[in-house]
């Protein structure tokens, strides 16, 4: 049976992204929608309509199905997360793997997955540990209290990890870190745009340098690979580097901050993790599920008529898969509202599902594990310097997080 918009009355006009409650819980509307049906039609604030996938099983089914396109440039794509300017920019640049489909996507992704294997990432572990220790050394060296953990740790760690991945020389680390921080901070639009332009110019130049003087890094290996295939495409490498930066920086940073908030506000959970670092990997999975910071980035467009989850979706219709709703679906997770570091559930969708499932997921996992282990080991008395409910949560952003996180010890 197909539900239509008229059936869902009060839920029409759902403003996306929706403000979370409490501040950790998903918006109330999520639960109402999920209880109504695993897939509903909603009206977007922009005026259009889209299907809203609320159930865990249905979310997996949609994301793995090749009849749904990721190409945000197509007419009818449910674009509540992109403004007109970003869309124009998207259309003027080479397509990114994030927005590709089928064989084209597979080729683009296969060119780089060798860089993100579990084994290759394990080799990066000592370097990431050094980076984390370095910023915690700096925290411990200052007398200043409180310290804003976002600036002191959450933002710089993933920025330097991406430097490592891309082969940004040491002398440029300060530049890279300051511009990446600027790009995601609450400064003026002009300042953010300037940081963006400076970084883009920098990466362009970095790749030119690596074309003549290759190093031992992802970009140099991509250059060699493309040359071997006879197609050195400078512009596509600039786009790739930028994709890794934009997909991997703010996400990981926000997850570091929220993870710390989640653990500090659940002291018994934190105590369990501190007592046995072997629990950290599972705690990371649970924090990823609980916060699902990238909710809503998994939108798609139907390219054919599809019968799925009890509804008939027509070619050309938009579909928004809510990973947060899926990750709080009681059919898939017992007591989903409980943060339980010993839940042992890895079937959450915080990194998506299907062919686009996060390319950097195992890097992100490792960064989070190292940060939480090291931070609570080296600063065991760490605590929030403001009540959790007063923190400036990023209620209006596509990627959930906190703007500031004052901590003390």
């Amino acid at each position: 049976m197909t539900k239509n918009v008229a059936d869902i009355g009060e839920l029409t006009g759902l403003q996306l992204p929706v403000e979370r409650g409490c501040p950790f819980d998903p918006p109330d509307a999520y639960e109402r929608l999920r209880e109504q049906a695993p897939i509903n039609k909603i009206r977007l604030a922009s005026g259009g309509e889209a299907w809203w996938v609320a159930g865990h099983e249905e979310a997996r089914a949609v994301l793995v199905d090749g009849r749904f396109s990721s190409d945000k440039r197509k007419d009818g794509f449910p674009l509540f997360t992109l403004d007109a300017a970003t869309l124009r920019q998207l259309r003027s640049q080479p397509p990114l793997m994030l927005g590709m489909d089928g064989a084209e996507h597979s080729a683009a992704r296969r060119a780089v997955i060798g860089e993100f294997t579990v084994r290759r990432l394990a080799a990066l572990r000592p370097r990431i540990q050094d980076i984390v220790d370095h910023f915690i050394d700096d925290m411990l060296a200052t007398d200043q209290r409180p310290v804003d953990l976002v600036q002191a740790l959450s933002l710089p760690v993933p920025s330097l990890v991406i430097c490592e991945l891309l082969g940004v020389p040491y002398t440029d680390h300060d530049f890279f870190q300051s511009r990446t921080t600027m790009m995601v901070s609450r400064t003026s639009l002009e300042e953010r745009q300037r940081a963006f332009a400076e970084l883009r110019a920098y990466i362009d130049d970095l790749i030119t340098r690596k074309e003549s003087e290759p190093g031992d890094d992802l970009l140099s290996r991509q250059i060699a690979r493309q040359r071997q295939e006879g197609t050195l495409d400078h512009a596509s490498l600039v786009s790739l580097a930028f994709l890794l930066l934009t997909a991997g920086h703010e996400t990981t940073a926000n997850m570091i901050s929220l993870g710390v908030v989640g653990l500090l506000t659940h002291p018994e959970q934190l105590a369990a993790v501190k007592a046995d670092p072997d629990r950290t990997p599972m705690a990371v999975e649970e924090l990823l599920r609980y916060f699902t910071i990238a909710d809503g980035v998994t939108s798609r467009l139907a390219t054919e008529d599809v019968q799925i989850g009890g509804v008939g979706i027509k070619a050309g219709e938009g579909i928004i898969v809510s990973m947060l709703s899926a990750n709080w679906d009681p059919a898939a997770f017992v007591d989903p509202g409980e943060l339980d570091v010993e839940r042992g559930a890895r079937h959450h969708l915080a990194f998506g599902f299907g062919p686009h499932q996060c390319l950097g997921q195992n890097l992100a996992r490792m960064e989070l594990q190292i940060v939480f282990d090291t931070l609570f080991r080296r600063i065991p008395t760490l605590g929030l310097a403001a009540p959790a409910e007063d923190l400036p949560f990023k209620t209006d952003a596509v990627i959930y997080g906190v703007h500031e996180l004052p901590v003390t010890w």
Partner: protein
Amino acid sequence: MRIKADTHLCVGSGQCVLTEPAVFDQDEDGIVALLTDHLDDQSAAQARHAVILCPSRALSILQE
């Protein structure tokens, strides 16, 4: 139990390697490689879990 990995479907997420490194590996290019296809009971339970977690449905159970 016997298991099958479809290297054309694999998207290199590494979920299987995280779940049961005694059975699953990734080659240089990040694509799944089976280390063995005859699994003992303990590995079989883990491998079943990997089949569920695999984001591209590249893994299947051939024989219980």
